[in-house]
Each structure stands twice: as structure tokens, then as C-alpha cells.
């Protein structure tokens, strides 16, 4: 143990504690994003890789409205959230039907197109030339309490609670409401669901809009908690994606837990000198391990069934 500690440069448990706190708060926002991605996938079969870019642009619009147009910040955040919903909905309505029968890989790749377009627009409108740096700060950033020797903002608590509430509410929505049931049915078979009289386009629109709203919400929260930077926010979807894959793009509760785990493990690797520079691999590694384990279980189960 001591040898491992010496080789890896492991900090003490006390030193780890603040990293756990920061990791949980980050994981909570990953969870928020993950729920949006899973809901959309379950309803439309689309893995929305533009989730981060849409949120990033919403956050930059909010920054612009607050700092350049003098808008009330809550109104600006609302616009950011609605922007997320609008852009995602428009994309879904324009490209969704055309891609409905295509392979999930094609659908996912198509969302990369939206990602690249939004990245280009953000780079054009919010240039980093001349050392420009931007930030968003919620009023709740100023209200803090101490845990494990570090200040915790109420924004962190809000992120955690919001992630939890949205995960629970979405799971309940999918299970107990008519629209949720329709979404689950569509995930299984779009054509049979349509034949049964379910208004497929309307259900899909609801899923696209819901996913977009969550991307806007996550974008604004991550802009405060992480950074208001187009590239950073766009690629944070990677950590979220790992959580959704661990949940096999199905389970909302597992997505939530996996996101918290990804965020926490990522943060806890930071103070370990030997691993610190490789911490960006954390989501990849966790997702790969989870996929391997799940695949192994599946093979065993299929083997037992004699299929």
C-alpha cells in the first residue's frame, strides 16, 4: 500500500475529500446532460452529439445579452434554454424524418454536422482574438458553505438537486405518462407505434425539444461551473456520453449514477501525480470497462439460453 502510494504519489484521504466534493457537483451536471441524451435516444434512436455545442451557444448568447445588451440575467438564461430547445427542435423536425429509417450510426454522424456548424458560428461571433475571455456567474455563486475545507457554492447544490430532480421526473414521465409511454414504444418500433395511431412526429418533436431544453440548461450551468468557452463546453459532452453508454442509453437512474461516478473519479485522479495528465481518459476508460462487462454478461446470458 505504502509502495503504491509512493509510486503513484497518492495523496492522503483528507487531501482527496475536496476533490470528491468538486467531482460530485460536476458529475451532477453531466447527469443532467445525460438524461437529455437518453430521452432523445429512447424516443428517436438519435445519439445527439450536438448536445454540448447547442448548450455552449445558448450560454454564449446569455453572456451576450447580459454583458452587451444589459438584459436581466435570469431572462437571458431563459433565452439560452429556449434557444437550446428551438435549435434542437428545428434540427429534429428538418432532418429527423429523412434520417428516421437510417442506421443509428448515420443519425449520430448527422448531429456532428450540427456540432461543426455551431462551433464555426461561435468561433466567428465570439472570437478569442486579443485574449478575450468570458464568464457567467450566478448570484448563488456568492452564497457558500464549507465542506472538507473548501467552499461549496449553492450553485453546486442547485446543479446536484436539479440533476436528481430531472432524472427522477424524467423516469416518472417515461413510465407513467401517455407521451412517455409513446416515446418508449417508438424506441422499440417506430412503424408499429405509428400504425397503432401514435402521433409519431409530435412525440418526436417533444423529445427533440426536451433534449434541447436540457442542453440549454446544462450549457448555462456548465458555463458557470466549468468555463464559458465554446470548445470546452462542446466537448464536455464526452463525459456525459460515457455515462449514457454505461447506462446502455436506456436507464435514467443508471445514467445519473454513472455521471456522478465519472465526475468524481475524474476529479479524484487529479491530485495523483502519476495519473493527473491522463485524467481526460477517465470517461473513455470507464465507458470501455462498462461496455466490456455488459457485453460479457450478455454473451454469458445468451450462451445459457442456448441461442
Amino acid at each position: 500500500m505504502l509502495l503504491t502510494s509512493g509510486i503513484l504519489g497518492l495523496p492522503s484521504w483528507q487531501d482527496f475529500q475536496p476533490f470528491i466534493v468538486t467531482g460530485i457537483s460536476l458529475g451532477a451536471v453531466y447527469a443532467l446532460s445525460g438524461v437529455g441524451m437518453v430521452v432523445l435516444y429512447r424516443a428517436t434512436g438519435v445519439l445527439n452529439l450536438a448536445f454540448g455545442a447547442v448548450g455552449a451557444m445558448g450560454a454564449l448568447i446569455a453572456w451576450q445579452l447580459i454583458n452587451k445588451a444589459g438584459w436581466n440575467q435570469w431572462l437571458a438564461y431563459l433565452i439560452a434554454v429556449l434557444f437550446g430547445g428551438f435549435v434542437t427542435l428545428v434540427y429534429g423536425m428538418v432532418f429527423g424524418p429523412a434520417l428516421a429509417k437510417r442506421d443509428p450510426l448515420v443519425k449520430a454522424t448527422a448531429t456532428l454536422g450540427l456540432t461543426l456548424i455551431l462551433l464555426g458560428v461561435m468561433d466567428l461571433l465570439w472570437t478569442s482574438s486579443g485574449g478575450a475571455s468570458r464568464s457567467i456567474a450566478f448570484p448563488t455563486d456568492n452564497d457558500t458553505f464549507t465542506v472538507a475545507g473548501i467552499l461549496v457554492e449553492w450553485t453546486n447544490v442547485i446543479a446536484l438537486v436539479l440533476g436528481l430532480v430531472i432524472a427522477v421526473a424524467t423516469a416518472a414521465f417515461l413510465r407513467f405518462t401517455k407521451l412517455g409511454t409513446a416515446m418508449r414504444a417508438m424506441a422499440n418500433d417506430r412503424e408499429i407505434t405509428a400504425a397503432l395511431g401514435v402521433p409519431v412526429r409530435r412525440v418526436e418533436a417533444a423529445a427533440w425539444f426536451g433534449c434541447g431544453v436540457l442542453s440549454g440548461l446544462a450549457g448555462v450551468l456548465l458555463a458557470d461551473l466549468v468555463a464559458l468557452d465554446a470548445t470546452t463546453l462542446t466537448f464536455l459532452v464526452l463525459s456525459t456520453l460515457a455515462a449514457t453508454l454505461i447506462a446502455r442509453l436506456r436507464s435514467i437512474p443508471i445514467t445519473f449514477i454513472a455521471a456522478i461516478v465519472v465526475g468524481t473519479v475524474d476529479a479524484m485522479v487529479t491530485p495523483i501525480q502519476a495519473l493527473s495528465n491522463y485524467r481526460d481518459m477517465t470517461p473513455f476508460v470507464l465507458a470501455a470497462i462498462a461496455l466490456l462487462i455488459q457485453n460479457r454478461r450478455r454473451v454469458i446470458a445468451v450462451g445459457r439460453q442456448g441461442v
Partner: protein
Amino acid sequence: MFQHVRRVRLGLFAIAVLGVMLLAGCGGSNSSSSSSAAPSAASSSATSSTSSSTSASSSTSSCGPKPGVAATGTPIPLGAINTKQPGTDFTDIENMEGAYFACVNANGGVNGHPIKLYKLTEPTQPAQIAADATKLVQTDKVVGESGNSSILECTINHAYWEKQNFYVIAAGIAPECYSTPNIADVNMGPRYSSDGAVQYVLSLHPSKVVFDQSNVPGTGYIAAGPAALAGAAHVPITQLTENVPINDANSVALKEVNDAGPNGAVVLNFTPPEALVILQAAQKLGLENRVKAWACSTPCDTDFLAQALGSKWNGKFFVNAELTPPDPTNTPTMNLYKAILKQYGSDVSGGIGSFSQMGFTMGEIAVHALESIKGPYTTQSVNQAFVNVKGFDTGMLCQPWTFGHYPLHIPNNTDYTVTPQDGKMVIKQGCTAISSVDPQIAAYHKAAGS
């Protein structure tokens, strides 16, 4: 079963695609972190407007020998190459130099000749960088190179410039910008600016220094300077690197503070956006007072950053500044710079700030050199004039600027330290020489006889 297989395939595909995109993003952010290594940073638009109003009365007519008379002679073609890619844009530098030349051309030119600046950009691709240089020389027939600022240009092209007998005036980043015979820079670059930041915190007698920078090629070269300074002061130094963009700044700030300890100092070498997220994370976690001092290399010298940080960092955070701070300076040169920026600098998006100051300074030096030429403007005469520049007072630097026939060039080796004060960067320490404890600085002084 098939659905499961498809889902696994989709998962693996998504991981692969995003991995590739992340790498692409890192390329951009490498550039961001190279932009940390970038020449410098700009001041805010707020500053810009204030300063512009003060300079409204300043005249641009003093930039040429014949006020109001446009130069009509044969144009003198010069070239410049700047990095431009998503997340990293140095074109303010060549654009400001172009604005300076436009002012000169409108007021008599250089011995009656206007200067034509061929401005090229490159997206940090070696082939493109090499092609840019060839195009400038062979197609555009430029007779001199002034205004280069690129992440890789010096590395890729220095041998070409040597072969062509070009002496390049630049704002450098890569080691070759400072360690080769045919390139001289108006800025100090990431290594010597980091030296300046470390040197300042060492004067506060910390028990330890933590030096953290972007994890990009060249970090070893940059880190060598701070290591030498801390070593000479017998202060332990921990060198850290961070992958950029930084996704979890809270953890990074915590790590830095834990490593430094209560009497230690943390020194950053990042682009303004990356430095800002670390400093804001430290502030959010209440870490700003957990160490003796925080410092940063030149890119942090921006009012954007000072405004975003707020008053909690007053007197706690110190930034190396390679060029004369524009806000509190009211000299004829600074007023001319502001007036030119206002009248001719419509394409200088960052406004007042280090990028445009560098472009202005390179323009000044180039014009000063060109004015000394009595005969025709050829590659030979222009480059001879460039390399012969000696002791030229630009008004933008602590010391007069010299090119010279030296094996290496670090002509800007004396600088300021600034600190945020209620949303503005103010001077904390006046012109101070970077210590010759850094072996490269010592080698330059020896070569230049300074």
C-alpha cells in the same frame, strides 16, 4: 440481440468519433495553450473605448514625414504570417502593423514609397506554413518579413529565412524565434515571460513555487527558465502541466494550492480563458488566500481577465507584462498607437492590447529600418537595414530594441509586472530585467555584449 449489438456499435463509434473530435479540439486548444504561449493578451473593449476617447485629440499625421500627402512611389512589398484557426487568432498583430503602414502611406510613406503588406494566415499546419513563406518570397516578391506571429512559423521556416538571407521581425512563441540567427522578436515569448512572473513571486520569498502550464509541445523549453530561477533562489519548484481545454478547473486549482502550501506561490502560463477558469475556480473554492501569491505570464495581462476576477484578487495576483501598459501611459508613441488604432485599425478586433501593441511596434521598427535605406528597396538592402537596427527606442518597450548579427535574439528582456485593481491592470513593478540566471538570457547578453 441485434439491437444490443447496434447499441454497442453505436457506443464504440460515438467514443471513437468524440475522441477524434477531442483531439481536434486539443489541437485547437493546444493552439489555445500555445496562445497562452502567445505573444500576449489584449485589454478590454471598455478600456478600448475609454482610451480611444482620450486619444481622440491625438493626430495620426506624425506617423509619416509629409502629413496628409499620400505616398505615390513604387510600393515596398513586405510579408507577414499569422496563426489563425478556431480558438487561436493572432491576426490582430499583422492587421495592426498594416494599420500602421496605412498611416505611414497616407502621410508621405517611406522616402515617398508606400509599404504594401502581404498578410497571410496559417492554421498551425507545417506544410501550409512553409508554403506561405515560399509564396511570399516567390510569388508576392516581398523584400522583407515583418509582423510574423505564429505558433510554429519560426520552427518550420527559420532555416528557409536563413537560406534566403531574410532577417525577420516577429512576435514569437516557439523556441526557434529566440534561439536562431535570423529572427528577432518584439516580445519575450512564453519562456522569458514565465521567468518574469516567477522572478516577481520569488521576490516575495515564497517557501515553494508551483509552475503550471498547458500540456503542449515545448513545455520543457519553457519550464527550464523558471526552474533555473527557482533553483538559484534555493526555492523548490514543482512543474505541472494541464491538458487544455481544462474541463475541471476546480480540481486543477485545488491541486496547485495543495502543492504550493500556505507560504507557496502558484505561477500560471495559460491563455486568458484557461487562466481565468483556474483563477475563478480558486476564487469559488476560497483558495485565493491559501497561498502567498498567484502570478501569470503575459497572456493574463488583459482587462478582460481583471474585470472577470473582480476585487478579491487585488494585490494577490501578479502578471508579467512584456510591453508598456497602455492604460496609464500618456506618451506621444502611446497616443499615436491609440490614434492609429482608432483611425486605421477597423480590422483589429481586440482593440487596445498587447497584440495590437506588438503589431504597432513591429511596424515602427520596420519603417525606421526602411527609412535608413538610401538606394533601391531590394531584398538585400531591406534585410540589411532590418538586421542593422540597433538601440531603436520604440516607446513600447522598456529598453531600446536591437536586431544585430547574433546567434540568438532576446532583445526584449526587461519588463513590467502588473496586477488587477478593481477591474483594471495597473503597474505593480516598473521595468525590471529578467535575470541572467536563465542560461538563455545569459547567452544573449554575452552574444550582444549587453
